[in-house]
């Protein structure tokens, strides 16, 4: 069948190009910007999601994993006795000064674990063996630390909290929302570095017996820890992520970006469709004169909007996926899931159809008698 909508669209290539560019721009803006936020948020919870911890017992009102709050390091013994608990250990997460070879001082996000291999912290070790962390003043540094701490080699020494540590390995993927580089060490070493941590821990990690439900175990743990919060893995990840969304205004910022993207898209698509509707008034008048209804004309505009949406989305999504490797070299993680892309696609179609609505009123007013005028 002959599609007047499609033929007219391709007949005016320049205008169609502008429309596509507008849609593609909006799509790229939203995908990249929101993808960047999602990438950052992903880091806020990566150690919660990747580690082997089922339940986190945290200091009362601890807002997120990076801001651990001290409480007595004997608490974990209470958890150990509970049926359904396979294992419970102390763990410290603490910002501690690190001395760089340049002489500069930086902050490190120190993870102190009694059994790093069991807990999967670190979960991905590229060089070295995590169980050797407890054999002296050893540490494993994440590869992402290069950006802030400079290049490092296994076998080198770094001063952390005033004590010399030997780098015995390198982990990967262990990053934090704050971008503070992550280093792993033995629990006792971490505890000894900070005065306020004497006799204290910041977390109790709990592993449940295979087959038992972490939700139920957590529910039983709560009354035993009245001065702590007890979170399952998902609750803790949600809370940590939610904290950053709220406290940094990221949610607001994402909202503004999406709003701007949609605005740009609607304005450009609406504007080009509208001007094309005005320029094609004689054609639409002819459609009416030969018996076409307003709906016949709406469907022309709707089809054009739909074509612009689909092609514009493909262009924009293609561009977004294409620049991802380049952004990765700048240490910018753009998270583009199929689900998220799907949501943006539906949004694009909705946006373009909404933009077409602006022209509907105008074409409804077209008087077919204009076909007789010169």
């Amino acid at each position, binding site marked *: *069948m*002959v599609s*007047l909508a499609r*033929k*007219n669209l*391709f*007949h005016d290539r320049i205008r169609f190009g502008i429309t596509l560019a507008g849609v593609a721009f909006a799509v790229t803006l939203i995908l990249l910007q929101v993808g960047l936020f999602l990438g950052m948020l992903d880091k806020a919870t990566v150690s919660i999601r990747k580690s082997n911890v089922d339940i986190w017992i945290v200091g009362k009102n601890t807002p997120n994993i990076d801001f651990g709050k001290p409480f007595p390091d004997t608490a974990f013994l209470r958890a150990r006795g509970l049926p359904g608990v396979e294992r419970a250990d102390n763990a410290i997460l603490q910002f501690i000064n690190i001395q760089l070879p340049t002489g500069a001082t930086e902050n490190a996000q120190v993870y102190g674990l009694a059994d790093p291999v069991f807990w999967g912290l670190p979960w991905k070790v590229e060089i070295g063996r995590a169980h050797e962390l407890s054999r002296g003043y050893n540490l494993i540094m994440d590869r992402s630390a290069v950006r802030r701490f400079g290049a490092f080699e296994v076998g080198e020494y770094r001063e952390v909290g005033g004590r010399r540590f030997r780098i015995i390995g390198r982990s990967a993927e262990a990053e934090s929302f704050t971008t503070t580089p992550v280093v792993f060490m033995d629990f006792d070493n971490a505890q000894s570095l900070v005065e306020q941590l004497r006799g204290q821990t910041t977390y109790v990690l709990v592993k449940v017996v295979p087959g038992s439900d972490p939700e139920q175990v957590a529910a039983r743990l709560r009354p035993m820890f009245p001065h702590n919060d007890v979170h399952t893995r998902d609750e803790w990840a949600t809370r940590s992520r939610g904290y950053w969304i709220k406290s940094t205004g990221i949610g607001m910022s994402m909202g503004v970006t999406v709003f701007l993207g949609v605005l740009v898209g609607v304005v450009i698509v609406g504007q080009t469709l509208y001007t094309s509707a005005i320029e094609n008034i*004689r*054609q639409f*008048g*002819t*459609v*009416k*004169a*030969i*018996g*076409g*209804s307003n709906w*016949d004309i709406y469907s022309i505009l709707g089809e054009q909007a739909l074509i612009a949406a689909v092609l514009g989305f493909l262009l924009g999504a293609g561009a977004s996926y294409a620049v991802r490797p380049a952004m990765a070299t700048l240490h910018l993680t753009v998270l583009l899931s199929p689900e998220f892309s799907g949501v943006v696609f539906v949004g694009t179609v909705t946006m373009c159809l909404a933009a077409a609505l602006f022209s509907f009123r105008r074409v409804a007013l077209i008087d*077919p*008698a204009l*076909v*007789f*005028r*010169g």
Partner: protein
Amino acid sequence: MKKVLEARMVRKIFVEGAQRVEVLRGVSLDVSAGEIVSLEGPSGSGKTTLLSIMGCILTPSAGEIQIGGRQISGDEKALREARRTSIGFVFQQFNLFPALTARENIIYALSIKGRKGVAALLEADRVIDAVGLADRRDFLPRDLSGGQKQRVAIARALAGSPEVILADEPTANLDSTVGVQILDLFRNLAKSENKGLIIVTHDPKVRRVADRVVGIADGLLLQEAHAA
């Protein structure tokens, strides 16, 4: 002869602000199957207005329109249905869809008229053949001469077999020789397809092909005379 389209005592008053202009002051005109009527008159006499009302594009302020003996009510849906099924238009400005080829122009018009698929393709080829443009059917309007464009427009008007064809100054944008060819084509088609045809014109050549010439001035028909 069977009357296919009839205007009875049609009046049309345009209201522009405080001004009321009575453009048609009680006009009755009809056309029968196979008949060609030439409607002539000075500029501003109401020719296009009368054609628009008979073509169900405008509604009369008073009077009525009958198609095939049936009165057409004034509501938009009935008017549109009448345009869709009973009337073909040919315009001075051709009004082809510039992005569509000759054949696509006709197929698209047929789809508006509710004809789709193979039947529409066959009908399109039939009318293109009828206007003698078989070898130009895949040309865009910009690649056709004025006379060829008007042939496409006539084919588009014929498509779907309406009873009546209404043409407003169909030769005004064509040179004299081409105008004669178009008028001959009108004549042949009106006779071979048995259409009622009203041609609004200033062009004296139209009289050559008309069965009847009707004059209009100041919104009133003057005389009815049989063409020579």
